[in-house]
């Protein structure tokens, strides 16, 4: 194993890329993918520390995160499909009904 700083650095970079994706992508699907990216960067960090400490606790947390990510994606994509059926577009800037 390489020194942990590389893995944590990679995780941080992936997280930042995910944040930028959430803030800057116009397509809702891309936003979801960025959210997945953020979750996976967290997974990477957890696994790195699990390996470093030779402990199983973090690995179990990873399972939780993956499961929840999958569930959340299911719900999110279902919502996205409903929105697309209404608006015929996934442009996130068109969803402004919370304005005011």
């Amino acid at each position, binding site marked *: 194993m390489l020194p942990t700083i590389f893995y944590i650095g990679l995780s941080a970079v992936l997280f930042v890329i995910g944040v930028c994706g*959430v*803030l800057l992508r116009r397509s809702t699907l891309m936003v979801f993918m960025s959210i997945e990216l953020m979750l996976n960067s967290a997974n990477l960090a957890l696994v790195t520390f699990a390996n470093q400490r030779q402990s199983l606790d973090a690995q179990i947390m990873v399972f939780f995160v993956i499961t929840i990510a999958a569930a959340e994606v299911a719900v999110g994509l279902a919502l996205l499909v409903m929105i697309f059926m209404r608006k015929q577009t996934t442009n*996130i800037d068109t*969803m402004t009904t*919370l*304005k005011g």
Partner: protein
Amino acid sequence: MTQIAWLIALIPAFPLAGFLLNVFLVRGERANGTVASLSIVAAFITTVIAVINLAGLAVESRYIAITLWDWLSVGQVTVSFGLWFDPLTAVMALLITGVGALIHIYSITYMHGDSRPGRYFAYLNLFVFAMLILVMSDNLFLLFLGWEGVGLCSFLLIGHWFDRKQVAPNIVPSEAAAKAFVANRVGDAGLLLAMMVIVSHFGTLSFFGSDGISGFVSKLTDASFTTISLGALGNVGLVSGIAFLMILGVVGKSAQLPLFVWLPDAMAGPTPVSALIHAATMVTAGVYLIVRTHVAFDLAPDASGWVVIIGATTALIGATAAVTQFDIKRVLAYSTISQLGFMIAAAGMGAYTAAIFHLLTHGLFKALLFLGSGAIIHGMHDVQDMRRMGGLRKHMPVIFLVYSVGALALSGIFPLAGFWSKDEIITHAWFSAQNVNVTMVLLLSSLLTAFYMGRQVALTFAGEVRDKDAHPHEALGTMKWPLYILAVASVLGGLINLPGVHWLNDWLNPVLHQEAELFTLNMGIFATVTVLLAAGAGYLGYRIYSSPITERLAPGDEDPAHYYLGDIWKGFEMGWGVDYVYQRIFVKPYRTFATFLHDVFDQQAIDGILVEGSAGMVGRFSQAVARLQNGNVRTYALVFLIGVVVLVGYIVIGV
């Protein structure tokens, strides 16, 4: 005793009830007028019954007193709502309720078609109530309540037509009403100060006391040598000081020298109001105050000296001003000022009975003159300028008759009422007070009175109607009976105090302790001379103004005498410039300051900066904040991010 005492409590209760009914329950012009008139008639009948009862009492204890409740108690000073009915009160109350009842009945026709009859009759009743409280109170504080009450009602009634822009050139009713009230108020400050001095030195405001506590009137004699130190200004006698302060109140209420400016403008109100308030009752409150507290004035010769000077000067100012007026009511207004000057001068000279006698007769014939002028105005469809009148003798014969009776009475022609009362005052000035100057001034005023009444009668009734478009008619209605009754009273009024028989003097003796003067041949000769002079002056006035030089007078024309007398005439017309001085010194700067406050301070500073400024700031701030809620999901996500960063940073860095 209690029965009779409750009787006098009823006297002011009737007008109060009329006021409350007219305000809260009664609607409709006829009902308003009837309720108001009935309440005053009831008050008059009650007053007569009370007077009969009073006459049945022994002379030494000829008074009825009742204390209704204790009003204020502060420390040792108690003021109670107490009523006092003695001979002086009796004559005042008879005048107030009697003339008041006639004027209410007259008003029913005069105010027909007015837009606010309920308000008019309600305030007229309130006025009678306040005036009765004034004359019937047993302490100075309650008197002050009545004093202020009549001032208030005067304001409300003068401004009855507050929505009219002007009723005569340069007179706006709402401004005239404010002027009356303010001038009154200036005088009231003096009365208040007098009350404060009395309370602080005597501990009571009650005139004659009750239940063993004596009133301040009896304490005045003991205090006649007490002085008050005014610091660097030296010492002034206590009683003198009280008297001087009261004079200020009298000057305001009774329209005397410095403060008479409100009375001519007060003619902006309806004519019955002028008759009641500014001829018979309110303006006489000052005379009543002096007579009621005459002990103070007897003990303070310097104060009563000033009273005489003020009274005599005002009599002259009023008379000279009345000669020059063209508005029929302004002549009578200045005439009232002049006659009040007579009464005040009489009171200053110590002739209290003569003052009250003149008060009573003047109330009768001045009310007659005002009501007559009201009938003229009514018949000429709201024309008040005498230059448009003339020849009304043919169109309004009844009014001509009663008005002439009033004019003769005012001029002091034998044997009408005014002769007896006015001559008693002038005779007193010549023989008892031995004051040549005052006698001459009063005599001159008397001659001018006859002159201007002759002038007025000529301009109004003689010759032909000058305004070709006028259609005068005589439609009297209920105005007939008050005019007749007052005319008869003006003729017979002198009977109450004929020399030798002097009923009024005997009646008022328990209160005023004055012995009637013996009637001498000198007095008779003096009186004859004055009557002849007055008759001559009146005839002169009538002849000059019914001669051809007045045939073509039109509104806007100058009086023919103006040409001969020059600017003195103008000075007389402006009331010797007193009003002009007040306008320049007080009113204009005050108005300028008020306009400045309104335009600059109020609109720009307060409205602009404080109100709109603070509202604007809040608005702009909320607009800025509202930009956060633009519905853009990405913005919300950014805000999430920032929040998370701050939170985590806080946890990691500083715990």
